[in-house]
């Protein structure tokens, strides 16, 4: 699909909008739901009519629409978690329209943003509104998990069932057996390719700047494409439209601040900045600590252009810099430097064409770049991924029971990896175009027992190879009782980018070509959810996911790469990804249980997952299926936050205690199998010990267990709040195994295990004003 084609479709959508808007009978009530405190639009807020079985959820822009409302005087009730319900009388004539913007105030109780009052919208209704396998997190939820040095979004998500990290040293997420490259990371709608700082220790998302997080662990709708496993959609704060507001925090790792302010009377502005500082403190005093730092920040402006038009402009950027100098002697020093950065920009325009017709148009850009250079110029590397994406989505509420969404997406991708070393050169580049066109029908018959969504996505990829696919998606929800429901979802997904994972330097992305085509996955999910004591929830989900044509990095690629041409010195120039990956297939199956309590003195969740993932690749394990390193049979997570003042004295605020317990079956690893003695060449004067692994990931490490604790104290002043905290990562100082070392000394075997992080206490201070 060409740019012209997509623009034609966008134009057609706009024309259709005008036509569609004239349709539909009955009156319409529509508007936006906002926070009264800061003017932020509230996403997924519930709006219902007292005494009439009609309700709606606000969309990603906070817009809601109640269609086919009988004429008369109605009482609208809006609810949102952590906010007081608001009730507003509205009168609407037959066939008419009433525009109502609803403003909800946060709970007056200190630190109780998560509290849900008895008269709030029932948990069951909120559960029913949520798509299967979807998790919504607010900054409060993220901070509920005792962090490692710094509150981190990805590490918090790893405390949910079905999501595991690979080790303490990585925040990359493995969602339901999928690998991190199969996750689509969005920040204000722009894709982030390598969302990790510090070699994966922390994510690029500053939790203080986050307004809302939505993670789909699978079965996502036709509006999302390009990835096989999950979608993480992060929305940064729009900004406070009422007053100046700020947060400043210092931890042992970083200092950061997020500021928000009104932009005139019709908009808001927010910005954040975070920087690590140990390079300026202990790094200056110790030569043993590499010179490393990262910073990131965002700026976002939100403007009401009119009652029906809103514009958001956002920018996000982050950069990591590492300089390593080897321990030099009298001679000049050697070392290497590596720097990598993410930048995204997004412009999003929303328009209410008619009360029932809502359009979202976005232009986003994303750039990831990394540079590596060994001193004296013997090795230089550059890795760049950029994309520019144009998106349009039209939402039309034909009736209370039927919503239609259509949209299109055009992405221009540029991926380049170049490496210049003494004996050759790598220069792999491609500039493919990826286009998507999708339609969704959401049918919710009155009575609210059923909710069915069917979608179809057409994806087209044109680069070094041309591909196109039709991807059907389907989701069904059925309410068993007032408090319980079942949900099912299935879908077909394609991915056109592949990744070479690396431990120190940033991962390398490659695009589909003649050597690696599109990867494919099919999801089957069934779930049961019920309200638990009105304010809690129980979720049980089972999933099965099949992967086809997935690609695993070929660790012995040196034997397979081919030179495309040669330079004037007859050095090879490698210009393709031939031999870089093993093609294969696989499947993941699992069963997850989540008990979650969001209110009261004790809040948190307990999650358990039983899962199994198997991959099979030509060229690995003799082609036999094996469990990948991220496969865990059982994982148990228990996250608790206790308001000690409330628990002990019945009051609220003051001391908070947090705990996070993780138990998981040990990771599969490959035993060397056997050792042998050999010399490299006839000129080698000695024989050395080498290993000959034959069975991949045939054994498992011991179980992983970790307990993290945190203690926070809050003190409120007239216009500001102070929160010093103490956190202990791995409080039991358990020596969890990372991998196993094998060696021989004087022919005697030496087998030792290398552990992950020991007990690590950290502290910090957070100030809100």
């Amino acid at each position, binding site marked *: 699909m060409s740019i012209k084609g997509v623009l034609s479709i966008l134009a057609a959508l706009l024309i259709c909008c005008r036509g569609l808007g004239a349709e539909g009978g009955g009156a319409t009530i529509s508007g936006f739901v906002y926070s009264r405190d800061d003017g932020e639009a509230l996403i997924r807020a519930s709006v219902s009519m007292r005494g009439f079985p009609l309700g709606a959820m606000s969309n990603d822009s906070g817009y809601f629409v109640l269609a086919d409302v009988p004429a008369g005087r109605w009482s609208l009730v809006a609810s949102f978690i952590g906010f007081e319900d608001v009730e507003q009388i509205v009168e609407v004539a037959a066939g008419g329209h009433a525009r109502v913007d609803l403003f909800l105030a946060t709970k007056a109780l200190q630190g109780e943003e998560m509290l849900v009052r008895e008269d709030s919208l029932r948990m069951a209704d909120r559960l029913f509104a949520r798509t299967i396998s979807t998790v919504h997190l607010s900054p409060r939820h993220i901070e509920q998990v005792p962090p490692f040095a710094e509150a981190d979004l990805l590490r918090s998500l790893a405390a949910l069932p079905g999501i595991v990290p690979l080790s303490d040293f990585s925040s990359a997420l493995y969602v339901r057996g999928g690998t991190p490259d199969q996750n689509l990371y969005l920040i204000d709608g722009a894709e982030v390719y390598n969302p990790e700082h510090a070699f994966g220790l922390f994510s690029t998302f500053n939790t203080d700047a986050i307004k809302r997080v939505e993670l789909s662990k699978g079965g996502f709708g036709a509006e999302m494409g390009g990835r096989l496993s999950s979608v993480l959609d992060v929305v940064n704060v729009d900004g406070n439209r009422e007053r100046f507001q700020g947060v400043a925090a210092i931890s042992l790792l970083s200092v950061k601040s997020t500021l928000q302010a009104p932009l005139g009377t019709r908009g808001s502005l927010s910005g954040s900045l975070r920087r690590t500082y140990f390079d300026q403190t202990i790094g200056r005093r110790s030569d043993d600590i590499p010179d490393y730092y990262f910073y990131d920040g965002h700026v976002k402006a939100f403007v009401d252009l009119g009652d029906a038009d809103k514009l958001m402009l956002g920018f996000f950027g982050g950069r990591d810099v590492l300089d390593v100098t080897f321990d030099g002697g009298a001679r000049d020093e050697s070392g290497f430097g590596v720097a990598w950065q993410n930048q995204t920009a997004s412009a999003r325009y929303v328009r209410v064409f008619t009360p029932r017709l809502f359009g979202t148009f976005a232009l986003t850009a994303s750039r990831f770049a990394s540079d590596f250079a060994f001193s004296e110029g013997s090795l230089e590397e550059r890795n760049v991924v950029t994309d520019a994406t144009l998106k349009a989505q039209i939402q039309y509420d034909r009736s209370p029971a039927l919503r239609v969404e259509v949209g299109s997406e055009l992405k221009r991708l540029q991926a380049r990896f170049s490496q210049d070393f003494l004996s050759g050169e790598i220069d792999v580049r491609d500039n493919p175009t990826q286009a998507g066109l999708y339609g969704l029908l959401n049918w919710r018959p009155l009575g609210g027992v059923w909710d069915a969504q069917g979608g179809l996505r057409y994806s087209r990829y044109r680069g070094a190879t041309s591909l196109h696919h039709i991807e059907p998606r389907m989701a069904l929800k059925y309410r068993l009782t007032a408090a319980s429901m079942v949900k099912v979802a299935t879908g077909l997904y394609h991915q056109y980018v592949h990744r070479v994972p690396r431990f120190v330097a940033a991962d390398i992305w490659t695009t589909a070509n003649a050597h690696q085509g599109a990867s494919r996955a099919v999801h089957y999910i069934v779930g049961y959810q019920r309200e638990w004591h009105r304010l809690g929830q129980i979720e049980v989900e089972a999933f099965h996911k099949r992967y086809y044509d997935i690609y695993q990095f070929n660790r012995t690629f040196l034997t397979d790469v081919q030179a495309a041409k040669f330079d004037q010195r007859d050095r090879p120039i490698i210009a393709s990804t031939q031999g870089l990956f093993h093609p294969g297939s696989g499947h993941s199956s699992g069963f997850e249980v989540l008990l979650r309590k969001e209110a009261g003195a004790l809040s948190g969740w307990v999650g358990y997952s039983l899962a199994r993932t198997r991959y099979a690749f030509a060229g690995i394990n003799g082609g036999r299926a094996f469990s990948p390193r991220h496969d865990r049979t059982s994982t148990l997570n228990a996250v608790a936050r206790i308001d000690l003042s409330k628990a002990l004295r019945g009051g609220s605020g003051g001391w908070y205690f947090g705990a996070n317990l993780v138990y998981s079956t040990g990771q599969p690893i490959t*035993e060397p*199998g*056997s050792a042998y003695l050999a010399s490299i060449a006839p000129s*080698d004067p*000695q024989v050395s010990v080498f290993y000959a*692994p034959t069975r991949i990931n045939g054994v498992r490490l011991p179980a992983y267990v970790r307990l993290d604790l945190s203690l926070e104290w809050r003190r409120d002043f007239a216009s500001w709040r102070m929160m010093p905290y103490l956190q202990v990562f791995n409080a039991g100082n358990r020596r969890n195994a990372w991998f196993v070392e094998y060696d021989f000394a004087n022919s005697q075997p030496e087998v030792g295990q290398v552990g992950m992080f020991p007990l690590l206490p950290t502290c910090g201070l957070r100030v809100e004003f």
Partner: protein
Amino acid sequence: MRYRAVAMLLWVGLAGCGEGRFSVSNTSYEPRLVIEGLLRPGIGVDGIRITRNVRVDERIRTDDLIPADVQAHLTDRSNGRSFALTLRDADRVEDRLFYYSGSDLRIVPGASYALDVSASVEGALLRAGAVTTVPEDGFRIAGVNRQAMPYRPLDERGDPLNFALSIERSPSSRFYLLTLRPRVVTSANFIYENSFTQQSRQDVEGRLDDFGFRWDWIQNTPRGAGVSTIEVMWFDLWFYGDYDVLVYAADDNYARFIQTHDQVREADGNFHEAEFAIEGDGIGYFGSALVDSVRLQVQR
């Protein structure tokens, strides 16, 4: 309820302590014949080492490394003649090599040879075999940018200057291994003023073998005859004095071994397979190469 809560807290506390102990299961162990054989034209079949592999949690008993009943045959595929190899006895197991003593077997560039080995290991009869085609003639070290130079001199841009060997390629080899062996390996001629690490004389004396042999390669050179350059990297030089530099124009079997045999460990500690071009129950290499050498000197 209170007791249950206390019990739960105790369990949580205890569960988060201690150590998960890994023990080697040896379930991945499979007996293998280890073959190290590199045929070189002009040199008779003189140094094929055939041993067995060992478990990773057991002491290496060198006396048991060579199976007692090894049968090894080399076949010249140009005429189909097969030659039985004989084990040469020696004090050190490293020196106990299989050889062919007759004069009717010549290793010729461009010709193919097959090795077939069988032996009993732990009660099982193992068989392994491989075929190598010797690279075609034409390879030689054509020249060196300089025969001697100080350690890590800098050029006009401030980059270190390396020894650079010009090689005339074998038309059929695309992989060239360079090995570097100092003639004198002592703590007295060790280069302490290197830019990587500060080592004391005492440290070096305990680790001389670690520095005494270095190797590097170039690969994916153009097909056909021509000239390529292979550099002796300054960071492979650890001693002042003379070096024997050998360059092997290797066949694909040997190249695969060199490229993968010691790269089986990933950055996160996990292992993966190497690529051995040996059929059956064998690991290691049976390959061929053309060899040339040059002497270089690192001056104080």
